[in-house]
């Protein structure tokens, strides 16, 4: 049951071969059996899930169900869930019960999907390995000595081990695509503004975007559709109709123009990963695609620009945690300043403290022009590189991450080394483009992903391009042996 696609599960529910309660119970059992080891969940909500499953079964019985009704999912713990703890992986919000639902959550609840629980993540989505969680590191199901990637590491590990059919995530610098690559599943980050940010705990508001993890592009297409769309409550959300993402999955790729940025294939790329990417590109050529070398000349500036913009916005966003209205408060504060300083100093982890300090420095008097303004200008240069490239090609392809999953603890001593893990994904956030990671093979028994970048609002196109590959290969169907039973 846990190895079926969303379409198959949907058909089984509609034909009443299985009930939503049975399906939900199946995944609850799997979580019980496997998650002590993986640590992909922060909060499990089996009772709520079964209650929602009963409601789903009733709507299937009376014919009012949609395609996703009754299919369970898990939410990254960055999405506010009314009445359920929303910790964002931080001690700061360990005791925070969200008083309302994020728009993504209410959209998926309305689609009739029971929520199995809230998924582990790097604290406030800051990290590339899920080692920065207050609730402990998440393990990679392919090798539990290794990280699942981050920041949506819990989401990726959970879907890879089939503890939920699909899961949500957020991606500010690669936090969906990089863990999808390291866990051998499919993950899509839509165009900035495509999905509402309302009720998502903010990290870097001009970059944050919600998306999905699934076994396949088809599963991702089905989940993304009800999530996406205009929301009055998010001032940067785009008012544009949402297409039927599943409708174009079977379009032919004959004549598709694929751009390969020469900067993504130069020094620094792991030889094993390069080989897998080459093989995937060869598969696309067989499907009728044409390959064109392109250049994104400002690529090397994306990490520097990101590590000004994201910390600057984070230092501003996280100033809301003051120990007054919600969140952690230190014991016996001697005055207001002591309360602010100790509440924040005691409850934020090291990476969060680092980024707040970098951002505070970059925004402090006299430094704004040299850092934040310069980074925003570089951001435009990076974005213009993509605009030029998309005059020539339909999609851009390259590796999602420079390496496969690394060992837990391997990169924790040096933040800058860790940051380089997002070298291929960050530019896409800076430009605000959609990107998807698709598993394309194994290097030393660890999965690696191909990143497919689309033009603005071309989610349907990149899903189609990913789906056609998956119709002709079976990497997306492989799962770690230890979780098959």
């Amino acid at each position: 049951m846990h190895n079926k696609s969303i379409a198959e599960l949907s058909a089984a529910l509609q034909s009443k071969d299985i009930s939503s309660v049975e399906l939900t119970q199946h995944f609850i059992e799997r979580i019980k059996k496997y998650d002590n080891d993986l640590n992909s969940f922060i909060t499990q909500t089996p009772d709520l899930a079964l209650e929602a499953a009963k409601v789903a079964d009733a709507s299937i019985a009376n014919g009012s169900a949609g395609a996703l009704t009754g299919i369970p999912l898990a939410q990254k713990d960055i999405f506010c869930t009314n009445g359920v703890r929303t910790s964002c992986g931080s001690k700061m919000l360990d005791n925070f019960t969200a008083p309302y639902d994020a728009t993504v959550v209410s959209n998926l609840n309305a689609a009739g999907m029971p929520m199995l629980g809230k998924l582990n993540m790097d604290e406030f989505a800051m990290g590339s390995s899920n080692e920065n969680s207050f609730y402990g590191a998440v393990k990679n199901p392919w090798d539990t000595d290794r990280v699942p990637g981050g920041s949506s590491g819990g989401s990726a590990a959970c879907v890879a081990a089939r503890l939920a059919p699909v899961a949500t995530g957020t991606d500010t610098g690669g936090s969906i695509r990089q863990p999808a690559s390291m866990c051998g599943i499919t993950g899509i980050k839509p165009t900035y503004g495509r999905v509402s940010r309302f009720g998502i705990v903010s990290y870097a508001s001009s970059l944050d975007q919600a998306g999905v993890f699934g076994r396949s592009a088809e599963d991702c297409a089905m989940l993304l559709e009800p999530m996406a769309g205009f929301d009055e409550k998010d001032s940067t959300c785009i008012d544009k109709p949402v297409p039927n993402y599943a409708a174009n999955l079977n379009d032919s790729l004959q004549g598709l123009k694929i751009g390969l940025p020469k900067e993504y294939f130069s020094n620094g790329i792991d030889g094993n990963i390069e080989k897998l990417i080459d093989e995937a590109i060869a598969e696309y050529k067989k499907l009728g695609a044409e390959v064109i070398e392109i250049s994104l000349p400002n690529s090397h500036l994306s990490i520097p620009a990101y590590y000004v913009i994201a910390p600057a916005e984070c230092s501003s966003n996280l100033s809301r945690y003051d120990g007054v209205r919600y969140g952690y408060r230190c014991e016996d504060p001697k005055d207001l300043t002591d309360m602010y300083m100790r509440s924040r100093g005691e409850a934020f982890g090291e990476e969060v403290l680092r980024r707040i300090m970098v951002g505070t420095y970059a925004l402090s008097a006299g430094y704004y022009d040299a850092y934040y303004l310069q980074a925003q200008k570089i951001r435009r240069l990076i974005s213009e590189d993509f605009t030029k490239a998309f005059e020539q090609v339909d999609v851009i392809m390259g590796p999602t991450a420079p390496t496969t999953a690394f060992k837990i603890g391997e990169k924790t001593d040096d933040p800058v080394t860790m940051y380089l893990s997002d070298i291929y994904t960050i530019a896409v956030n800076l430009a605000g483009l959609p990107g998807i990671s698709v598993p394309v093979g194994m290097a030393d028994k660890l999965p690696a992903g191909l990143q497919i970048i689309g033009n603005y609002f071309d989610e349907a196109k990149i899903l189609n391009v990913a789906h056609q590959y998956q119709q002709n290969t079976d990497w997306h169907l492989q799962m770690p042996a230890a979780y098959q039973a």
Partner: protein
Amino acid sequence: MSLTTDEIKNIAYLARLSIEEDRMHTYADNLSGILDLVEQMNNVDTSAIAPMAHPQDMSQRLRADTITEENQREHFMENAPATEAGLFLVPKVIE
């Protein structure tokens, strides 16, 4: 770019973060490393480039100034560390 521990102390104070004294050197090293990484931006001439704040360069959407939310004061205050009579409690600020 190399930051001193005094500069770290000042930044931490500006951001209202208590940092343990024995961690100051580590943060000074870390932040200096991050600023070195960021400094690659300095070599780029951007004098003719407009800053980019939103990928679609959209402007702020406006709406009518009407009440759209119901009052849920008590509900929202349930997460507060200390309250009394519908107010948030904080340490004494005026002697």
